[in-house]
Every structure is written in structure tokens, then in C-alpha cells.
């Protein structure tokens, strides 16, 4: 929606102002986004190294072989992030026997406070099992991943983050297959998208 407003604001502005075509603005994601398969490629091309909740070095390509459900969060987040995590937990519950066939991945925006230890504590607190990976990375690695996943974020003056709330589904090779934006929205389509990748 926002993106549409942006696009419109540009279009309106330019139409008043005798166009200077800044760009061929392309259609942007809506609440349900089906990612175009033909142009999609693996996000596992990302070479940056992360650290997982057990303080081990981690590269995204280690997730290869199973479909992955991924979101970006920060653990000091009081509203949206617990909601995202519990949406993912619910998806996991719903998968029941299949849940071992899926990776669940959380990557933190908060490169300062979300140390591997803090992520470990969060995982324990939220009862996340062995199928979950929580990652901490450098500012640059986190920013690049956010761009690959079309997630917007900014740090505010209190050290918290404003960010888009998106759960993404990657196939076994790390190709983005489905994205769902929003809180308190039905995860039915996300569930179907995951099932399709098993």
C-alpha cells in the first residue's frame, strides 16, 4: 500500500510538473506477494558470515536441502516481533510431523544488543526447538539480507527498529517463493506455500 502511495505521489507530482520520468517504477509488493519464479535466484549467494545462537559461525547456504521460513526481528521488540515469532511457531505446530523437514530462521536487526547469548535466551524463552536458527550478523550483512528479502528497516533514536513485518518462504535452494506482510493476518497462504516446498 505504502509503495503504491509512493508511486502515486511520484506520478502525481510529475504529472503536475511536466514529467521527468525518474524511473520505470515497477509494481511493488502487496500484502500477498507471489515471487516471480523465472527471475528469482537463491539468496544463498550472500557470502557474509553470521553467528548463530550457539556462537558458531554460520553462512546461509548451510540451510540448503530443506525449505526455510525466515523473518527478521529484534528481541527487544515488544509488539511486532513476538507476534512474528508466534506466527512462525503456529505454522510449525500446524506442520506437525512435517516440521522436522523445515528450517525456521530468525535474523536480528539489532547488531548491538542481540548477541548470540541474547538470541539463545530468546530461543529458550520462546521454546524454539532444534529446527530454529537465530542469527546475529554485521551491520552490512544484515542490511544486505534485508535488501535480498525486500524488508525495510531503520534504527530509531532509542536503539529500537521500525521494520516491515514479513514472513518469507524459501525453497530448498534458498529461492524466495512466497512473502506475507502484516501482523494479525491469516497465515493460511504461507502454510500452503511451505507445504508446496516439502
Amino acid at each position, binding site marked *: 500500500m*505504502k509503495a503504491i502511495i509512493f508511486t502515486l505521489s511520484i506520478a502525481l507530482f510529475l504529472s503536475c510538473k511536466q514529467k521527468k520520468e525518474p524511473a520505470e*517504477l515497477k509494481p511493488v509488493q502487496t500484502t500477498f506477494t507471489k515471487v516471480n519464479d523465472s527471475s528469482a535466484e537463491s539468496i544463498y549467494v550472500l557470502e557474509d558470515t553470521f553467528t548463530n545462537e550457539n556462537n558458531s559461525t554460520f553462512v546461509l547456504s548451510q540451510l540448503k536441502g530443506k525449505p526455510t521460513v525466515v523473518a527478521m526481528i529484534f528481541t527487544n521488540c515488544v509488539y511486532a516481533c513476538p507476534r512474528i515469532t508466534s506466527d512462525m511457531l503456529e505454522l510449525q505446530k500446524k506442520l506437525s510431523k512435517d516440521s522436522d523437514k523445515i528450517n525456521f530462521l530468525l535474523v536480528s536487526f539489532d547488531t548491538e544488543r542481540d548477541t548470540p547469548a541474547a538470541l539463545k535466551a530468546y530461543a529458550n524463552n520462546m521454546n524454539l526447538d532444534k529446527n530454529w536458527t537465530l542469527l546475529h550478523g554485521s551491520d552490512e550483512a544484515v542490511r544486505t539480507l534485508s535488501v535480498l528479502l525486500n524488508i525495510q528497516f531503520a534504527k530509531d533514536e532509542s536503539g529500537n527498529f521500525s521494520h516491515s513485518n514479513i514472513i518469507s518462504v524459501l525453497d530448498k535452494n534458498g529461492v524466495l517463493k512466497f512473502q506475507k506482510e502484516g501482523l494479525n493476518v491469516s497465515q493460511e497462504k504461507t502454510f500452503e506455500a511451505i507445504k508446496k516446498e516439502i
Partner: protein
Amino acid sequence: MVFFTVPVTYSQTTGTVRKMQKVPAGIYYPFFSGNNEKVNSFLMDETAVTNAEYLEFVKANPAWRKSQVKRIYADANYLRYWESDLEIGKNNRALLNSPVVYVSWFAAKAYCAWKNKKLPSVAQWEYAASAKPVNLKTGLTEYILAWNAQPNPKMLPNVKSTYKNIYSIYDMHGLIWEWTSDFNSYTGSVDSKGNGQEEFNNFCGAGGANVKNKKDYASFLRYSYRGSLKGNYCIANLGFRCIKNL
């Protein structure tokens, strides 16, 4: 905590040296009122990266040639006006010293890394771009709006063809739009903290009430433009320049 990035192999030859200018430390006043941000002193390329310079990059880094670039890093419009991988084309000779455009964020970032530089953040770019011109007859805002009102030129002019600012940096406005490292900074849709503030930073009437200067349509455009981009978009008039933190 130790982080490291798997070293990307770039050619040792890093091509032409683009002169950089020092931008002194100062305060960046974001377009949306709120937190002003301290900007440390940094070096900035005095012009945007040109086609000639970008050609050196793709010669040295085959992975960034038109035919070889990964789609996730650059869409099908990548360098679309270039004749081939290593040829800009006879009709495009005049563009050699003009900014390279139709390049993605990933490509821009890789170029800067090859030069041992980085893309500027939104704060750095906007702060440098707000510096006073030294050779313009009109005010800066007036100048930008006049530029925005013009149709695209048939051929993109050369770098240094517009104006210079007090830091001796050229063409921050008037030639192209430029990538920033955090172009995907959050500007608001669903509020992650639940207090409604982010919704306010939007571009409808309610959001407009919160901006720094309601008459600053030029900033309005830049912020909305950035918000509509994705990392692999390759677009007419969108290029980049690099910086170095001090």
C-alpha cells in the same frame, strides 16, 4: 564478538582514481522531523561513477558483466544501453564521461567495495547534498525543482556539467538520482511498535503534517523514490558515487 566477511575476490587493478572531497562533520536533519543525526566527517567521490570507470570494473570483475550478472543482483535492465559486455557502443561514446545508470544497488555496492569504498548512507548523502552551491544563480531548492520539471535529456550529460557545492562535490542534484547504502530504511506501513507513529510518516495528508518542510517537494520525491526501489532494480537516471569513512 568478531565478525568477518568472506573476502570477495576483486581484481587488484582498481582502475582510474576518482578524486574525493572531504565533507566536514555536521548534523543531518532528516526530511521527517524527529531525530537529527550527527554525521562524522567522510570523503566523497567528487562526481558520480562514470561509464568509463564502470567499464574498468566489469573488465576486472567478469561476474558483473551484463551476460553474467546474477538476476538476484541485477534485473534484466542492467546496463541496457551498453552494446555488449565490454562495449558501451559507438553511439554511446559521448556517455563515457557521463554517470553510469541502469545499475543495481548490489552492483553499486560491489563497485565501491572494489575501490575499497562504500555507498553513502541516506544521512551522508542527504547531508552532503544539502551543501550550498557555489556556482548557481538560483537557490538550491529552486534549482532542483526546475530539474525535476525538465524532460529527460536524450543523452545524459557528462559529470561536472551541473553545479559544484562548497565541498567541491559536483552534480549532487541536477544530473541523476543516486543509490544509498540504506535506501530500504523503513518509512512506514505497518507499525512495528503499535503506537501509530510510523503510520504518520507516510505520504498521505496525515504524514505530510510531520515533515520538516512541507514545501520541500524535492525531498519528498527523493524519499518516496527510495521507498519504491528494490536492490536489483536497474533504472534510467539512477547511478551512484562512493564514500570513505574517516
